[in-house]
């Protein structure tokens, strides 16, 4: 019962995050919303795993948690340097 209520709450949070990702005026709003949606997906996976008695979903949750940070940092680096293989440090416009 409480697990269903928590699942509903996480779904509401995911909906708000999706709205922010669609409306966000800057790129960083969208990246922040994507990060929040990723965390919400992990929580949703764990709660549904408990709700249906299948705790194997937690492995997928671990995978999502590891992919979330990589995706966020990759998008931020791409929008800063325009290239994922850029070594960083100096700006492309400085040199």
């Amino acid at each position, binding site marked *: 019962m409480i697990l269903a209520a*928590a699942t509903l709450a996480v779904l509401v949070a995911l909906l708000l995050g999706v709205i922010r990702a669609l409306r966000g005026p800057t790129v960083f709003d969208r990246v922040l919303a994507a990060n*929040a949606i990723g965390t919400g997906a992990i929580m949703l996976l764990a709660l549904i795993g408990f709700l249906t008695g299948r705790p194997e979903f937690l492995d997928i949750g671990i995978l999502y948690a590891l992919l979330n940070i990589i995706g966020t940092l990759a998008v931020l680096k791409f*929008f800063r340097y325009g290239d994922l293989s850029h070594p960083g440090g100096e700006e492309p416009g400085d040199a």
Partner: protein
Amino acid sequence: MSALSEVIGSMLIAVGAFFYVVGAIGIYRMPDVFTRMHAAGISDTAGAGLLIAGMMFLAGFSLVAVKLAIIMGVILFTSPIATHALAQAALHEGLEPVGVGNKILIGPGAHPGPEKIGKATTKKTRKPAKRAARKPAKSKATKRKTASAKRRTRS
């Protein structure tokens, strides 16, 4: 013993779901990227932490609890890293946090957020277009037509 741990786990899950929704409302309602990061931090630490703690109480001592602890540790380590990188990138891009430079935040005369500024300017530009006669609109349309015709002739 199991009933007690179930009650404690249910309470922790309820409080965690509350904090999670509060953080999501903050992500939706806050006026700025940096304040939204603050709200996302609430749902990432308090919300997710309490939810996972409650589920650990429900699971008891098992492999499931270890996996939940791994998820919690990964989230607790990566959320501040993502927030730090995001704030650094936003500051490097030139975004200014709302409230810098003695801007009033609450009440009448408050500094509107970036969205409200955009909305106000679009409304100001839209209203005189409605009040004005249809002639300038027609002239604009004709200009567009002529421009498109020029483009066609150029191409």
